């Protein structure tokens, strides 16, 4: 079941070739390795541009991360965890 989280998180990301890719992030004192980025999209909110990434972690747990360019901040938007 998808759950809405909307919590700030710390992310290690790679800026390369004009793109951004989350590599791993910390949530609830746990470091989650991004196994695969399965999709990305972006949304304008006023002058803020928010980049979303759907990623798979361990056990195929599903996360949606968002990077807010105005605030230079990451959020965990939604999750689907195993079990």
């Amino acid at each position: 079941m998808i759950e809405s989280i909307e919590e700030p998180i710390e992310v290690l990301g790679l800026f390369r070739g004009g793109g951004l890719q989350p590599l791993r992030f910390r949530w609830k004192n746990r470091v989650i390795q991004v196994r695969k980025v399965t999709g990305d999209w972006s949304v304008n909110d006023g002058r803020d541009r928010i980049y979303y990434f759907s990623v798979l972690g361990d056990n195929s747990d599903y996360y949606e991360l968002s990077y807010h360019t105005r605030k230079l901040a990451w959020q965990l938007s939604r999750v689907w965890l195993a079990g």
Partner: protein
Amino acid sequence: MEMARRCILHIDMDAFFAAVEATMNERYKGKPLIVGGDPSRRGVVSTASYEARRFGVRSGMSLAEAYYRCPQAIFIEGNPHKYVYISGQVLRIVKTKSPRVEPYSIDEAFIEMDGGMALEEGMETGREIKDEIRAQLSLTCSIGVAPNRYLAKMASGVKKPDGLTMLDADSFRRLFWTKPTDTLFGVGEKTAAALRTLGIETVRELAVCPVNRLRAAFGVNGEALKQIANGIDCSPVTPYYEEAPQKSLGHEITLDHDEEDRESLLRTLLSLCEEVGRDLRKEDYRGRIVVVKIRFSDFKTITRQRALNGLTNDSEGIFRIARELFLGNWPGTPLRLIGVSAAELVHGEPKEEEPALFETEDRRKIAVRAVDALKDRFGESILCKAAQMRYDPA
């Protein structure tokens, strides 16, 4: 006169919203997936995966019925931003094949190939588009290739999902003439029932029916019905950069539960008017007519409209009219849906703007501009009218 040879492709993404979700979250793959929201709440199915469709779940069906038919399905909220973005990615691929691309909806588009291209060549282009969409986005689509828009649209539905079908007038007749009239795109249940009263059951019977008889029953649409039954369509593909001006712009909402509280309904109506006004101003349109749509709990739906003295994109002006229309036509019974739209739109500044009658009107315009500027900068949720908020003394 010989018509110029045309080659038109219609691309239809397969179960688009569900497919996008399944591409991003592998837990959804191969499972019945229904995009629309929590089935314990109100709402309708936006898209169902093919696995869910096997249980009879269809777009537009209430979520409650979808749950009844397929309780084991995964129900999720849709994410329009995600789908619009991916739709843009699809169009980006398609536009590499021809500049004449007309987005028809978020998951459909028409593509007109260079003049003189044979349908067989169009099939090759269709194959390339399918391959590129699969490789770059991991999505499938169905494509119809035909000498006109209507046949292309019919062709894309022949084999789904992941189909590629060529249809000319001859193959259209072979394939569709023996079928019931509601197989045709644009012929719904009501039209098919009306055709049956004329003794017309099949597409062939519609195609050969004298046009005068159809005109007598359906007016100008009678001729159009005969044309589509013969696979005739001369309408152009209008590329996105030559887009026809919009005729109306509106918003509607299915309420969480059947609502009969006057204040709550007026609050919803105000929010809808705010959205309509904001969209009009963003797109630089003004409307001449305000339309209110009301759907009762028994699904009976009415629309009422009123013309304005001039043109407006002012949310408050729209709300004043919408409120009168609403209160004048709402009998106080529970409602399922409310909608507001502005129609007979005119693009750009009016030649002569009517002078404000009261100084407060000018002041309000300045305030509206300031609010729009704030929303442009910080997003739509930065502020709203106090009257849009629910008063909770606790």
